[in-house]
């Protein structure tokens, strides 16, 4: 019997050709669920590049609307364009579900155009939102109250959502991020020399300065230690200055920006991975990638990181902003190679079990189906 495909309007701040975590996840998420009988379009922004308003990538139809300029620059002309195009897109595509990835306030336009074609709304929280109570006079408060379902990628974020709007306890859940198995196999870990790796956008929130500040203490016990910082960003010049001030030039290497594919290769060459973030990471994708490659992780106790890294089992959790504690944890792992290797293997197993791609997709498919059934009842 001919089955009508259910339509999902997938909304994300940026999409192809951008390569942030959410964007890359989306490009894999959509084709996988299309194979399971859903039809998708993507609604997104142009970002900083001069990209066409309508586009296609691997068969996925992309609509780019001027949300960012409208809201950031308070540009009414763009607001009108965004609003009218969105109304038209909704009326034409007739989505059963609008799946909004929350990293920016463009959901304002979704609520403004709900009358054009009412659809169930899933809000997926992709970055830390303020955990304080969110009033009805706030976009966040209205979003959490109006959503049909809210997903978070860690329990820490779920707690924040429920603290912001307590009634969300009835319609919110955690769906952990999932990653496909890396194409390369992990090499045996070497601690001679001791090679530390930190990956991410070089911004103050990532706490790479704390990792640098830990280097003199690490080098005092392990002169062979080397730290690689992979990534780029506005904090880089400041970090390079810090390296000079600390006199650790010969022990620190900046690779600049690396492609997503190269990340696993870099991890494979590392003894362990440090995630010294000082902000509330919603999840901690790098920590998961490290586990996939059987590397123990030293991560800070912020946001979802303690869920991705099981303290004492797959790595060590340390206080944020504390170079001494970070150094101690690194040295502990370096001095206990057998225990560290076991942690790495345990991390790889845990990644397969808890954060696997199929599980992630299954849980979203089940959520879609559940909401579609409730829409039929409505």
């Amino acid at each position, binding site marked *: 019997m001919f089955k009508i495909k259910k339509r999902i309007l997938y909304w994300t701040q940026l999409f192809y050709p951008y390569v942030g975590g959410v*964007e890359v996840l989306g490009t894999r998420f959509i084709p996988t669920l299309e194979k399971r009988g859903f039809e998708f379009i993507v609604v997104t922004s142009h970002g900083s590049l001069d990209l066409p308003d309508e586009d296609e990538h691997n068969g996925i139809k992309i609509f780019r609307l001027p949300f960012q300029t409208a809201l950031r620059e308070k540009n009414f002309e763009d607001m009108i364009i965004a*609003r009218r195009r969105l109304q038209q897109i909704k009326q034409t595509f007739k989505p059963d579900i609008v799946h909004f990835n929350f990293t920016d306030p463009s959901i304002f336009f979704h609520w403004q155009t709900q009358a054009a074609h009412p659809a169930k709304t899933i809000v997926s929280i992709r970055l830390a939102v303020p955990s304080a109570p969110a009033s009805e006079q706030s976009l966040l*408060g209205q979003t959490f109250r109006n959503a049909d379902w809210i997903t978070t990628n860690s329990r820490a974020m779920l707690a924040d959502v429920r603290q912001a709007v307590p009634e969300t306890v009835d319609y919110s859940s955690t769906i952990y991020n999932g990653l496909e198995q890396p194409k390369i196999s992990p090499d045996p870990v070497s601690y001679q020399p001791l090679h530390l790796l930190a990956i991410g956008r070089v911004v103050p929130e990532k706490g790479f300065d704390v990792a640098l500040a830990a280097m003199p203490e690490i080098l005092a016990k392990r002169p062979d230690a080397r730290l690689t910082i992979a990534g780029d960003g506005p904090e880089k010049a400041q970090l390079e200055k810090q390296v000079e001030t600390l006199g650790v030039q010969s022990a620190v290497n900046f690779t600049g920006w690396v*492609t*997503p594919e190269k990340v696993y290769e870099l991890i494979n060459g590392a003894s362990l991975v440090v995630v010294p973030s000082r902000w509330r990471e919603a999840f901690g994708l790098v920590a998961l990638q490290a586990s996939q490659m059987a590397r123990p992780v030293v991560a800070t106790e912020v946001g979802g990181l303690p869920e991705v890294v099981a303290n004492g089992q797959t790595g060590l959790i340390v206080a944020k902003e504390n170079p001494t504690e970070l150094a101690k944890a690194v040295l502990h792992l370096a001095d206990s190679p057998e225990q560290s290797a076991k942690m790495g293997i345990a991390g790889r197993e845990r990644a397969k079990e808890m954060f696997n791609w199929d599980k992630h997709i299954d849980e979203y498919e089940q959520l879609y189906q559940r909401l579609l059934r409730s829409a039929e009842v409505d």
Partner: protein
Amino acid sequence: MTGMSRFMVNEAEVAAKVMDGEAILIDLSSGKYYSMDLVGGFVWSLLSSQHSVEETIAAVTAHYEVAEERAATDVKKLLDELQKEKLIVASNAESAAVAAPAAPAEKSEYTEPKLYTYEDMGDLLALDPPMPGLTEVPWEGADNKTEEGK
């Protein structure tokens, strides 16, 4: 405030636009956003163009299926909120800047005009500040491929 009171947009601090009948207002100093849906947008367009409170109530009852008493209560309530949020200020004008729209042949369905506030818009815009060249690297570069090599 009397029925004859007139108001205008607090132009020094507020930018406002009615689009497709709905109003969007921005407090430029605080970054707060506001919106009003169809009836609200209609009331806003009248009040902000210096129609008196009485004239506004009369126009609402002429355009929507609503009793005058309820329209009066709702318009005054909305006006209070607009004043409290300093979105409009008193005007000395003696007449409206533009004529009220002509009454339609058929009245529309009425819903209470409401002011929706988005006090956290500035905070949410700052959640993920734009960092050119970081999260925004084209895939071609990411894959180390040239345009020809795709």
